[in-house]
């Protein structure tokens, strides 16, 4: 069952995975390009402060890429089900629980491909530069964080995509209404309740999403390939 679903998902997404893998592999290399020479090769010596300064400009691209790939894998997992009205799934002698679980695992397995690309790229990038004393490369840690971030977005959008369009529209509508009411209503409430002068509801909600135990905390940590 798992193998069949993995194969089906692979057929769906293989062309989309090619740019994802290339981007994942190439991003660490792009980051370090022009920063120095490999160990033992003559060239401009690396400056620690310069490395950190220049790499910082690239850091936001890792979580962005991880999230994008996670979303693509998740949506593609349910693509053919929605397209053919779940005929294939209904023809199988399995429960929905078993079917969904296998589908989820198959997608998670495919997520390992771009993560492997990043892991290899990060190692190559680390070897390509002669790091000055005091700095270290963290290719393994970066790849692990990349995997977690991708799985999180994959899981979230997998759950969204597993439902009907009506459910998705309802959830999105609720989110939009909460955002609208939160933004416009906070100022109104602040006129009557001083508490809302100090606490902005939407800001508090956003903080709770990105701070532990919120779901997006993994996106807010360190994403540096090279750091002290």
């Amino acid at each position, binding site marked *: 069952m798992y193998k069949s679903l993995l194969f089906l998902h692979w057929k769906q997404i293989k062309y989309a995975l090619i740019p994802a893998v290339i981007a994942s592999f190439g991003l660490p290399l792009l980051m370090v390009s022009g920063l120095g020479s490999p160990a033992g090769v003559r060239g401009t010596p690396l*400056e620690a402060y310069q490395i950190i300064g220049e790499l910082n400009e690239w850091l936001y691209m890792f979580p962005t890429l991880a999230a994008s790939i996670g979303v693509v894998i998740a949506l593609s997992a349910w693509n053919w089900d929605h397209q053919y009205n779940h005929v294939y799934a209904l023809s199988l*002698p399995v429960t929905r629980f078993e079917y969904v679980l296998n589908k989820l695992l198959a997608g998670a397995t495919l997520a390992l491909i771009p993560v492997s690309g990043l892991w290899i790229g990060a190692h190559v990038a680390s070897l390509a530069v002669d790091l000055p004393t005091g700095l270290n490369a963290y290719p393994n*840690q970066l790849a692990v964080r990349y995997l977690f*971030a991708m799985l999180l977005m994959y*899981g979230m959008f997998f759950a969204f995509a597993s439902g009907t369009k009506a459910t998705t529209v309802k959830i999105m509508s609720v989110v939009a209404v909460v955002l609208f009411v939160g933004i416009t209503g906070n100022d109104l409430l602040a006129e009557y309740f001083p508490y809302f002068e100090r606490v902005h509801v939407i800001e508090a909600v956003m903080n709770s999403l990105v701070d532990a135990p919120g779901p997006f905390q993994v996106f807010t*940590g360190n994403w540096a390939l090279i750091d002290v």
Partner: protein
Amino acid sequence: MVALMVLVSASPLQGQDRHPEDENVRERMSELRSEIDRLIPLVEEAKRARTDRGLQAEEIEREIAGALAAVDTFQVGLVTVITPEGQTDVARGIFEEVWGEHFTHIDRSPALQEARFVFQWSDVRFPIYVEEGRYKASIEYAEWYALEQIVGHVRSSIASVVHYDLTNPYTVDGNRQSLPVGNWAPNNAHYGWDWSETYRDVALTRSRASRSCIDGELDACKSALGLGIEPPQDRTPLWAPFVIAGRPWNPAISRAQLEEWYTPEERMMRVNDLAFVSRYIRTVWSECVMERVQESCDSLLETADAQVVPYSAQTRSSLVAHALDVGGVGAWGRLFEDPRHTPIEALEYATGESIDLLLAGWHDRVMAAQPPSYGALVPSGGLALLWVAFFATLAVRSTRWRLG
């Protein structure tokens, strides 16, 4: 409104009203009455607003008067605290906590003997004031403070007074600012040093001396900290020689010293970081940075003061912070006791340790403070997996179709 009515009734229009044939006059009067009716609510609203504002101001003044009328005074360490009656316990708790954690190494400080802290609790408006023995109250910056902010405010206020006492030229011991080690101690040297920031600063410093220091060469640490520079170079104001245009300059840092600190490339980049106002200096700077003339770079740096020492003022201060910890009670006073002491002598005297031993301790402390770059990875990753499991549960619980 009454004034307007009187005005209207006394106006020439009133006289004309006795002649009903004048339609224009009647129309005009009607318009004026409507205008007056429209203004009445506005006038009432303004009156109410003025009354409210007056009541608020009175309330605030009563709060201040009440808070300052009955005060209590107590002593924590060397600090005298004056606080409104009824808030003594809270104030004492905070001051004792802050003093015990960060200031016990201060033995006898004349400024602290004089200092008065006016402390008020959060539901009135002025948490803390330090103003050399005088009260201070203002209603313009009314704000509420959280407890941790007040604790932080107490901490920085005490540190500020201590620092002022020990480095200000007009305090008891005269010209303290001329003490060489005075330049090494910003007021946050008195409490809670962030050693991981020091590590980051050391690791990112662009200097061959710093790299050797990280590798454990204590002489390189001594050099990169600028401990080898003797007064008066280490207290020269920022780039002071540069305000005098033209050669010959007054060399402050030797060429050998520069070469010990920096590679030629690093010296060039060091100059690149600096900004100059003098036209002459800008010319030499341009020769260095644009035309890459090494001699120009070196001649510029030679005239510099302690600002070209590889480690930042903050990192240099960390040595003072370490010395205060090692020296214990009275260390701060000993550090500044003798104005003839060089920084090395002052540090050795304050701690009772040789400079090499002190540096070794400082180095170990800095290296041990390497921030964990991915320290939070495991918990945040675990959390992400839990959320994935949660979303997966939502997906499998869907009742859209099921066979079993």
